[in-house]
């Protein structure tokens, strides 16, 4: 596909998703209380969209990923929350 064809096919969808992200951040900041590690991860991931770096999807996924290498002692829960929380 040419760049024009990609834009024709995906621009409106991407624009929609970008506005949703902007509105989410406004909503978070409008709300009272403290943020947490998820918001920190989110901001790190957003930084990967800047500039002309390639492989943005991969970089965003890495920003949300547990970077450690060793198995944990025991699974305390079954679900994943989407962001990495370092053990204290």
């Amino acid at each position, binding site marked *: *596909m040419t760049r024009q064809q990609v834009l024709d096919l995906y621009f409106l969808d991407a624009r929609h998703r970008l506005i949703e992200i902007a509105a989410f951040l406004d909503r978070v900041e409008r709300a009272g209380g403290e943020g947490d590690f998820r918001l920190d991860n989110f901001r790190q991931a957003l930084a990967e969209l800047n500039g002309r770096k390639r492989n943005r999807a991969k970089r965003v*996924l890495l920003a*949300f990923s*547990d*970077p450690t290498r060793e198995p944990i*002692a*025991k699974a305390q829960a079954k679900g994943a929350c989407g962001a990495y929380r370092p053990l204290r």
Partner: protein
Amino acid sequence: MVSRVTDDYERMALAGCLAVCEPAFWAGFDRGSAAGFHDYFSQLTDHEPKRAAKFGLKHFCWLCINSKEAEDLKLAEEVMALVPKFLDRPNVLGIGEIGLNKNSRNELRVFEMQIDLAARHHQLILVHTPHLEDKLKGTRLILAALQNDRRIRPEQVIIDHAEEHTVEMILDAGMWAGLTLYPETKCTPARAIDILENYGGERLWLNSACDWGVSDPLAVPKTALEMAKRGHLGDAINQVIFQNPKDFLSQSPKFKALI
């Protein structure tokens, strides 16, 4: 398909699907005993093939204890002891979906035991990789465990739920990478096609999920449509959507005989 209504079989048949390959997975709750798994394996190997056949669909399955219930080593060992007596059933393709969920020591131990089970019984392997933030680490641990067992032939292993940050390491290991299409989590059709365009179609397989959560049994045909919108030609679409999974699964004589 145990979590789906019969209408989904009909919709899949209408969309051109020929076969369903259903992994043994979490039931949305922890089973209370190994007897619950015995009944589940009977359902997968006896009841579901009949339900699918009503719509002209072949039904295949994979058997194992899934990683979400692998923290309890005693239960896991009891379930693994049940698996061999089902392996000769005509629709069983191999061991799966084994793997990791939270990347714990017990999950890894059970994963290694199920690799051994597959090797001893000469079975294909289907691997589930963890969700979201746990996927990168889990995929690394999974690949290391598989590569530590010299009996395992990489071309007989598919590592499922790959995404942009894990697909390359899977393909570099000589294994197949599954791109699981979901409306919200894992891969969307557009991203899956991006991966195909970046890495080529060799040893890549697209699959839909039919689970308890938000999922779409028609995700694969919808991705074929998306590929056509991008200008991919019919032969290329057929290669990825149909021929690639057929090539992998035909390593099982049971699949080869029926499809």
